[in-house]
């Protein structure tokens, strides 16, 4: 039991850190530009498709990974220049609709370019295999690598925002948009850079998920909605809240799916327990979100506090 628990804890952390990569970009873009971006999942999908396609073409996962991140960042920069920057001064409804439109366009474009059949990606040889966990279970190295990458990005973002000139401008932009402009910072370029940065992180999350699940059109949307739950729980605009919320959501979701059906099996007959347990497990994070919001409507780490 303890080996299973440890394995599932790691799975939860791994899901959480993948979600963090998504949520970080969303919350950064909202915090600085006040924009809600539904198309963030499309950038995740872009990263996954380009990584899978390039990886298959070159035979190297690492080339694919780099290409996926760059493609997502580039796609982010392009849509920022063409569409997103017209939305900063619009209300949230317009932002939702325009970025929903972008999802439709991206999804159909991906279908047209890469076809409707899902792509598959192999775990890179360097990260293949598994390590023994205390308690005897074997755990895939690749999942540990995702955890490491997520932690590295979190640390990197922290350093970027706290220690660099760009980070200083980002923090200033969150505090007072007009003032940053008045101080002579090129706001338009700053926004493009931030948006592309968030897009690149989404692309990284998508590229890394390729070896774990099939790469297909629409794959970004469930992740996007989980990322929304994450940033609503964490407090919109807060990177720290995104990290905390992401790991919380990852753990609760993963552990709920494993242990809730088991818990129901103690009181119900097996097939009913499996059905009921699975159904309730899929709702668990939303119930958690509702409970947190009932107590703290601004999330756990409100950005302006």
């Amino acid at each position, binding site marked *: 039991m303890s080996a299973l628990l440890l394995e599932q804890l790691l799975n939860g952390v791994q899901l959480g850190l993948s979600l963090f990569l998504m949520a970080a970009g969303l919350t950064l873009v909202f915090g600085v530009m006040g924009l*809600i971006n539904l198309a963030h999942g499309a950038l995740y999908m872009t990263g996954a498709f380009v990584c899978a396609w390039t990886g298959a073409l070159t035979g190297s996962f690492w080339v694919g990974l780099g290409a996926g991140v760059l493609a997502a960042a580039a796609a982010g920069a392009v849509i920022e220049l063409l569409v997103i920057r017209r939305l900063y001064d619009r209300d949230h409804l317009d932002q939702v609709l325009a970025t*929903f*439109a972008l999802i*439709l366009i991206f*999804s*159909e474009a991906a279908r*047209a370019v890469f076809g409707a059949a899902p792509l598959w990606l192999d775990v890179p040889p360097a990260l293949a295999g598994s390590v023994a966990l205390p308690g005897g279970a074997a755990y895939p190295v690749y999942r540990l690598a995702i955890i490491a990458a997520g932690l590295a990005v979190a640390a990197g973002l922290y350093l970027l925002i706290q220690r660099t000139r760009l980070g200083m401008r980002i923090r200033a932009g969150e505090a007072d948009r007009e003032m940053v402009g008045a101080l002579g910072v090129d706001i338009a370029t700053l926004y493009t850079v931030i948006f592309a940065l968030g897009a690149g992180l989404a692309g990284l999350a998508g590229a890394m998920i390729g070896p774990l699940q099939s790469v297909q059109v629409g794959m970004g949307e469930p992740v996007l909605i989980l990322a929304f739950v994450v940033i*609503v729980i964490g407090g919109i605009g807060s990177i720290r809240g995104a990290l905390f919320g992401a790991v919380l959501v990852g753990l609760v979701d993963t552990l709920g799916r494993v242990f809730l059906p088991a818990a129901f099996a103690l009181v119900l007959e097996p097939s009913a327990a499996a059905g009921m347990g699975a159904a309730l497990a899929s709702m668990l994070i*939303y119930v958690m979100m509702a409970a947190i919001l009932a107590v703290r409507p601004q999330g756990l780490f409100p950005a302006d506090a």
Partner: protein
Amino acid sequence: MREGVVSAALLGALLAFGLGAWALGEVFFVNLAARVACVALAGAGLNLALGFGGMVSFGHAAFFGLGGYAAGIAATHAFDGGAFAGVLPGTTSMPVVWLAAMLAAGLAALPIGLISLRTQGVYFIMITLAFAQMIFYFAISFPAYGGEDGLPIYLRSELPLVDASDPLDFFLVSFALLVAVLLGCRTVLAARFGAALALARLNPVRLATAGIAPLPVLLAAFVASAMIAGLAGALFAELNGFVSPAMLSWHRSGEIMVIVILGGVGRLAGPVAGAMLFVALETVIGGWTQYWQGWLGLILLGVVLFARGGLIGALAGPVRHG
């Protein structure tokens, strides 16, 4: 007055289209007209929350789908003699199915609205989306009513003098409900409740200062809006003879929202115009290319960036307040 003329003309056009298709024996187009009526009704529901209450709900598919499942479950148990939750037997009586659909949607909307309305702006959008997703995943993973595969409706429901399996009858029933709901909305919105709702949307501080707490007004509108969407879902499921988690999906929420926007937010007949446009695009562009949703995306992007106000805005000019 001009908006009233445009609204009546749109409804007249839809009715004429359905009747004309029937006269020409084109059953496909009669069903298409019924589809427009169902989708417009769902849009009319969302419009009450979004357009008139200023509540940007991205989760109305939940209510649409719950209405659909209410119809599906009623038909299933009427067929197999079982009972929902062990107590509620199935039925094929149309008014009972409608009532059940509206109640199911309304009962879900009450807690969702209560929690979501504690927040504002972008939080509200994300939370309504998340709650809808919760119901979507529940429908997928709960096996009793078809789970991922959905639920076929073997028994059509019945109304005295009406044969619901007849396309024309079904279109006329859907159309009559759409007209009734639009007239009902018009009456309520022009009355005291509507005045309070307009203030709650435009300036909640003013409403509270006048002595009316905004929250109950908004919640009532949200629940009513969900009930209309639920009714639309019941009709839609019956029209398709099938209900599945796809009716609850967030894409559906987006589509209902797109219909409201294309037609014109906060315009009574906006959803009718939007639904006609949406179904027309789906049918026409979908006939040319399998990538029709991408084209829809481009059109939507164009409307949002360059043509705010939607179809009704273009036809009847900006909103006039009394």
